[in-house]
């Protein structure tokens, strides 16, 4: 065991850091670090920059563009990207659809979709949740009826993150309503969002932002060749994918950057004539979060290290999700608290001269991050998974 970077790892870190410095546009970085909304172009332009360098999907197999990096290198890369304020690589294509295609897709599907995912030609989104199917995902009702060489899809998806940017959506649909187990009779379909019959409606969240959507399907014709794996066997695919979905939710490198920013803010905010950072009440709560994050950084790498050799992530990512999201939320709470009364101003009414946009973003971010313990399987569902899969309860 050695938890210090080797000289090779340090050299790799320097290489990544240098490349980002040379290639990340200032305007984009400022948007990220000031918590401004990122447009589809913002997200895809950075995706394409990484793709050109060959770094957009490090964990893919080498033949499809993966980098063969070690777990440590991947973490270093992630950490450098977050620290520098790079936009995120949206997970739905690279981290979710692609692993599914690599595991279950036909050669034709791989050839058609993987290069486009890699290059950022298509913006992928995820169609899982429905109004009546949240934690109980297998109860989903959106139905797909086979008619000749097509499926006809009718129903509704909800909480579709960035659905308004989507070019393609991967969906779980019910192809058989008469099975004994509800998990049987579900299929995994790839759907072009330009197909007639699809309507996307925004859902505004309590931070006033537009991030999630409802997606309606009204007799949408989907070519049968866009079925992944076998008909009625989509649950196998769904479970495989959920592990990958959760893998990205710990966001440890992101939390490290955010924690450093809170420290910075609390070092500047004053209380009783001295920095808030030196106030023992505030500092103790901050330190406990910092220590939890230090531990999680190691836990994360210990677990990922165990996944070498291509085993799909299992219950261990549930643990990372639980702790990682708790930490993310705690940091937004500390940040808002560091701003004190100044955290109240949200939007200027009479022109924005002198308006402190960064401080104004702290309260909505605190609100927004409540999602983290709910999405990708609520933290209660993650505990159910660990109880069953790891503990055998």
């Amino acid at each position: 065991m050695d938890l210090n970077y080797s000289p090779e790892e340090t050299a790799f870190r320097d290489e990544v850091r240098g490349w980002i410095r040379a290639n990340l546009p200032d305007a984009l970085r400022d948007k990220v670090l000031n918590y401004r909304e990122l447009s589809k172009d913002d997200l895809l332009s950075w995706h394409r920059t990484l793709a050109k360098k060959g770094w957009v999907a490090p964990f893919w197999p080498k033949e499809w563009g993966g980098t063969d990096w070690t777990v440590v290198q991947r973490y270093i890369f992630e950490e450098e990207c977050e620290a520098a304020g790079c936009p995120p690589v949206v997970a739905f294509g690279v981290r979710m659809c692609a692993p599914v295609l690599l595991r279950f897709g036909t050669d034709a599907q791989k050839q058609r979709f993987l290069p486009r995912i890699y290059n950022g030609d298509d913006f992928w989104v995820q169609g899982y949740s429905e109004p009546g199917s949240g934690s109980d995902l297998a109860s989903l009702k959106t139905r797909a009826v086979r008619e000749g060489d097509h499926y006809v899809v009718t129903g509704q998806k909800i909480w579709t993150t960035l659905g308004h940017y989507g070019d393609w959506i991967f969906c779980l649909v019910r192809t058989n309503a008469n099975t004994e187990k509800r998990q049987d009779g579900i299929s995994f379909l790839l759907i072009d969002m330009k197909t007639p019959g699809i309507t996307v409606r925004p859902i505004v969240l309590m931070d006033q932002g537009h991030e999630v959507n409802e997606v309606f399907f009204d007799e949408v014709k989907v070519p049968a060749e866009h079925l992944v794996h076998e008909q009625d066997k989509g649950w196998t695919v769904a479970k495989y994918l959920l592990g990958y979905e959760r893998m990205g939710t710990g966001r440890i490198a992101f939390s490290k950057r955010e924690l450093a920013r809170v420290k910075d803010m609390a070092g500047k905010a004053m209380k009783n004539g001295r920095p808030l950072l030196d106030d023992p009440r505030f500092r103790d709560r901050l330190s406990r979060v910092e220590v939890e994050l230090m531990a999680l950084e190691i836990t994360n790498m210990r677990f990922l290290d165990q996944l070498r050799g291509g085993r799909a992530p299992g219950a261990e990512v549930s643990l990372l999700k639980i702790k990682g999201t708790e930490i993310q939320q705690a940091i937004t709470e500390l940040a808002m608290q560091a701003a004190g009364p100044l955290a109240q101003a949200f939007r200027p009414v009479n022109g924005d001269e002198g308006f402190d946009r960064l401080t104004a973003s702290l309260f909505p971010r605190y609100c927004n991050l409540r999602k983290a313990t709910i999405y990708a399987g609520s933290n209660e569902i993650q505990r159910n998974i660990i109880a069953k899969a790891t503990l055998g309860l």
Partner: protein
Amino acid sequence: MDFEYSDEQRLLSETLRKFLNTGYSFDARDKIMKTAAGYSDDVWAALAEMGILGVPFAAEHGGFGGTTVDMMVVMEALGEALVVEPYLATVGLGGQLVARGGSEAQHTRILPALIAGKLKMAFAQTERGSRYDLRQVSLRAKKAGDGWALDGEKCTVLHGGAADLLVVSARTSGGDSDERGISLVLVERTAPGVKVSEYRTLDNQRVADITFTNVQVGRDALIGAEGAGHALIEEVVDYATALVSAEAVGAIKYAHDATLDYLKTRRQFGVPIGTFQALQHRMVDILISYEQAKSIACLACVKVDTAAAAERRRVVSAAKIKIADACRHVSQEAVQLHGGMGMTEELKISHTFRRLTTIAQLFGDADHHLERFAQS
């Protein structure tokens, strides 16, 4: 970076665990802790025989030159079995002060005997008013002839009664809370003027209050330079803190396993209580605490060997904060989930509860280390 134990470390773990599983059952431990000495000479000899007493010491003295990660392997196993022998006091504290700060002559005189199991040690540091402050030393050592004379008191010295040889922190100059002016002095436990009052602890280890009245030692009793002991004390206490963090990880592992087993076998309302979601989620949180404690203990054990003093302080305090919190969380939950049985002397879980409670405060509780972490 590398997150696995090496083959040698796995072998060390297997050897020690095999011995503890057969020779250190809960019943065997019960008999040992009820003896007059409170530990077993046979077990101590066996630990020497297996080389466990020599893990961190240099090969030239008969040790293995092991890293703190090697010691982590040992401490996890000792923690899981709730070993009551004075291993931490001898190998982790007294022996370390000699190995790191002692002269050639002291090395030769002490370390081979220690490694062979013929010499036990303790570190007499804490005083009644010092809490966890390593600078607070009022026991005095005054020049007397060619050597020194010690006067003062130490309290709750870990395994002070079992020790043949004590390392005593003594003030040779300055005020009671000055960083400078603290010296480390070797004193035979049976030397004239040394009075030892031994106590059982609730977790079945031993501590001692020790009074020193005009205790005469020679010039060669000093470890390191006169008045410059503080840095070495802090280094060794940080080392020992990393070790008890690893010991806690082992005890937490036991609490986790025993509680999980209990949830699967204890039946109420016609079903195993582990089928209840309210208990499942609490069991998952125990697992999370275990994994997080293990990670931070790894970090501490790696960094005490490789980091400069400032980073070492920061990481060790971080570890102790997390370990203290995990000790409290897991021990309390383990008793709660065991119900009434968890309260009983009869079950190992209550002994584990007590050991974890002690470790939570050993070498500084979470509050102490939160303060130190914030300053580092």
